[in-house]
């Protein structure tokens, strides 16, 4: 019998107890589950508590009934469905075409044109909405007025206070731009041989996009579409400003209005929010199923990153994309400029319409500097938290055999399905009600956690979808070559995830910097960020000062984005 040796230093005992990987995964699942389900269950419970006239509380469905029978609810739901459909049908093909041109062809200037879309994404949407009112108001809108003069019309043809006005403003601000930003990393990860095969079989580029590119990217496409739909379900800023004259209300307006009551009706609002979740659940499950049902690996060890030559279309395409990019940036920046340098936004007939007064007043506001510092801390902290936790959660959901991974994946969808206003109350409960977290109440850490949870869905899903594109062998090759798990993560996984991580980081940064609803109930004197200052100005009717804050946030984020770009472009897949 030969003697055997065992490398005891390295081998570990398997037993029927879970090994260290399972323990870690369970810990992550536990923490995430707690942070999400605790506030949600409290909110849900709250929705069943009906306030009685004698200030007692009874358990019942009255809040749900109120919510569903709120006058105008049916119209709001129909409006929402209709608006969602129209926006997705228009913005998605436009966005895909733009991204394809930027990521997969030899379009000149593709490295910096996409930055224009980032700037557009960072711009605050409310001043831009007001800018469009300036142009398209049926009576005073500049475009209408000039068209009336030129064509001797009775009435200007455009009415911004209408369904199409609202849809237009959505398209001109977020709808297209967000999709472009989110889809770019995924298109970069496509091995060009898929498209080349399509071309060789005689299929033109547009149909190749539809038949080859989109199906290959199906998980990413579904994630982006789903996010867009949910965002739409919760966005109400634009509808709030443009809706009243035509009484166009959407679902999120109904939620918002319930909270405008004296006293705010959180119970009924939560009921409506939970219903969003109920509607979203089958779509989320569909996305999960699609991600699991096939292999979407497009980055293997035989990756080819060749670019599609545009030939004679090169310069026309360049002009078109550049024009589009400029449309999304120059026009809004113009509006922002107007908003901050005019005494009263849109009033040109004042004796002295231009001023730098607003800038002066904002920057000399005693709490301005502290708010700015808090915003930087908040956004920076959120990004750090995001960069650590989102890839971790995504990795567990995709690459391990941990049995709770599907639950973890589903949990990561929850934050986005609950509107920020409701989530804010949930966070309040979470931080007040958990002994571990309570000492943090009132500090910036609480805001960081809240902002981090708010952006969890996008971050986790993007990273997860990107992981699906990366062949598992790339990790296995590292293990066999002697890389431990941490080494593999550091040298293989994270570098290949860098483009999507940059996107996730920047989106997390800006959403933390802009987050109002989710943190409104948690701010104190110490941790107030700029977003709250902006809200204060808005509530006060000082749109111009609010626009100044918006531009400052835009500048801040653009600076960070530039840095991130320089960093990210040096890492990642070399093409």
């Amino acid at each position: 019998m030969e003697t055997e040796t065992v490398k005891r230093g390295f081998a570990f005992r398997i037993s029927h107890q879970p090994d260290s990987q399972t323990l870690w995964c369970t810990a992550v699942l536990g923490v995430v589950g707690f942070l999400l389900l605790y506030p949600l269950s409290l909110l849900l419970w709250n929705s069943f508590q009906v306030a009685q006239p004698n200030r007692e509380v009874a358990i019942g469905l009255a809040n749900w009934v109120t919510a569903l029978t709120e006058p105008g609810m049916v119209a709001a739901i129909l409006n929402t469905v209709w608006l969602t459909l129209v926006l997705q049908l228009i913005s998605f093909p436009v966005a895909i075409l733009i991204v394809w041109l930027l990521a997969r062809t030899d379009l000149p200037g593709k490295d910096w044109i996409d930055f224009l879309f980032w700037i557009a994404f960072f711009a605050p949407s409310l001043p831009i909405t007001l800018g469009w009112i300036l142009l398209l108001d049926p009576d005073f809108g500049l475009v209408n007025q000039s068209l009336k003069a030129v064509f001797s019309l009775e009435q200007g043809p455009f009415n911004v206070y209408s369904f199409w006005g609202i849809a237009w403003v959505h398209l001109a601000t977020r709808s297209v731009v967000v999709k472009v930003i989110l889809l770019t990393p995924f298109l970069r990860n496509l091995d060009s041989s898929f498209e080349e095969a399509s071309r060789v079989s005689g299929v033109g580029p547009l149909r190749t996009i539809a038949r080859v590119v989109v199906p290959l990217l199906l998980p990413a496409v579904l994630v982006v579409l789903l996010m867009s739909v949910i965002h739409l379900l919760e966005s109400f800023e634009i509808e709030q400003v443009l809706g009243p004259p035509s009484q166009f209300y959407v679902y999120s307006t109904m939620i918002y209005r319930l909270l405008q009551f004296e006293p705010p009706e959180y119970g009924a609002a939560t009921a409506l929010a939970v219903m969003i979740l109920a509607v979203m659940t089958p779509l989320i499950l569909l996305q999960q199923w699609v991600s699991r049902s096939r292999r979407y690996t497009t980055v293997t060890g035989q990756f080819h990153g060749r670019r599609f030559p545009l030939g004679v279309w090169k310069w026309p395409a360049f002009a078109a994309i550049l024009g589009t990019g400029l449309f999304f940036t120059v026009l809004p920046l113009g509006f922002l400029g107007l908003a901050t340098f005019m005494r009263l936004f849109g009033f040109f007939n004042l004796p002295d319409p231009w001023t730098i007064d607003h800038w002066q007043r904002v920057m000399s506001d005693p709490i301005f500097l502290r708010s700015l510092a808090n915003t930087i801390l908040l956004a920076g902290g959120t990004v750090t938290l995001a960069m650590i936790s989102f890839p971790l959660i995504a990795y567990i959901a995709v690459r391990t055999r941990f049995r709770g991974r599907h639950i973890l994946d589903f949990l990561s969808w929850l934050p986005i399905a609950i509107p920020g206003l409701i989530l804010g109350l949930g966070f309040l409960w979470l931080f007040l009600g958990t002994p571990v977290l309570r000492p943090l109440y009132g500090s910036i850490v609480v805001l960081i956690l809240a902002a981090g949870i708010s952006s969890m869905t996008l971050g986790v899903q993007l990273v997860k979808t990107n992981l699906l594109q990366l062949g598992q062998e790339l990790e296995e090759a590292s293990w066999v070559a002697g890389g431990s798990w941490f080494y593999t993560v550091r040298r293989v996984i994270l570098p290949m995830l860098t483009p999507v991580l940059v996107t996730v980081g920047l989106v997390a940064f800006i959403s933390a910097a802009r987050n109002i609803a989710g943190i409104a109930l948690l701010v104190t004197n110490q941790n107030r960020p700029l977003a709250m200052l902006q809200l204060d100005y808005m509530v006060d009717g000082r749109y111009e000062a609010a626009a100044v804050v918006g531009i400052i946030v835009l500048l801040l984020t653009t600076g960070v984005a530039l840095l991130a770009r320089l960093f990210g472009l040096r890492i990642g897949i070399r093409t």
Partner: protein
Amino acid sequence: MWLRFLLCLILTVALAACSSGSQPDRASAPRVPGSAGGDWDSLVAAAKREGKVVVSGPTRELWRTQLVAFEQAYPEIQVEYIGANSRDFWPRVFREREFGQYLWDLRVGGPDPQVYEARDRGALDPIRPFLLLPEVLDETKWFGGMDRMFFDREKKYALGFVSYISFVAYVNRDVVPETELRSLRDLLHPRWRGKIVLQDPRGGAGLSAVEMLLEVYGESLVRDLLTNQEVVVANDLRQQAEWLVRGRYPIALGIVPDAFLSFQDQGLEINIQPIAEETSAIATGTGGLQFFERAPHPNAAKVFMNWLLTRAVQTHLSAATRMNSRRLDVPVVHELTAPDPERLESYIPSQVEEMVPIREQAQRLARELLP
């Protein structure tokens, strides 16, 4: 697997729920027995020892500046000021108190129903016993005397230091001259269909306007107005003011003068006048004060509340906010909305607790009739 997960979850929630609730709060001073009638100087000394007062108030910068000026009068007492909407503020305070966190000394804000709810929950201590300064206690200095200064039933919890006439409707007279629209009843004329913009009637000034119409003219007028006149509901003050000023909707209900006066400040010529009323409402707007039970710095709070009500402070405050002070020895800053002390009884105080049922009825009507 699901079962295991569920069990863990339930355990976690149960643990969290059990351990929360009856926690001793971390920063509370022991309850100070009411020092009504105590020495002002010893109060100030005690306040200085506390060193700080935590005040929540309106978010507007000028309120903040005015209220933080307390530090100039009392340099040893720091003012921690947090601006918050009442809609965001009260739910948060209630939650905090549920979890044993007593973080606030004073709230500067109008006496809306949540204030009365706070009193019912025992979250408020009375203010009246702690007003000490002679100039504050002088009955002759307050419009309607000190009783009318308090809006709650017991006349000691919710104080209002502003009084202005809250007109129901303002009209852009460049668009709609006086001759065409004289009284509130004229609003029902079909000519004004689609020309009226109402501030969100779920609360605030918008609700006050509906409340007044209901109280003075009755439910049928309100129903007629809200059902037939295609009233547009504005979601924010600036938007409503701009529509009024531009003439898109030349009639605005539930608007506060300051909203369109700021246009005038920037150089715009405007001609906006209220519709004359036989019976007008008096309101205090956001110019109210409440004192928290178990305040962490009760003595500093008492000094603050007295300071706030002095003539000097009220003068500065009203000049800055353009809202007339309730003090009669403070100059009137806005003539149009200054109530006449001679006609005291003809005004309806719209924010007092007795009006709450009417207010709630107005809210119900608005909710039902306006989509």
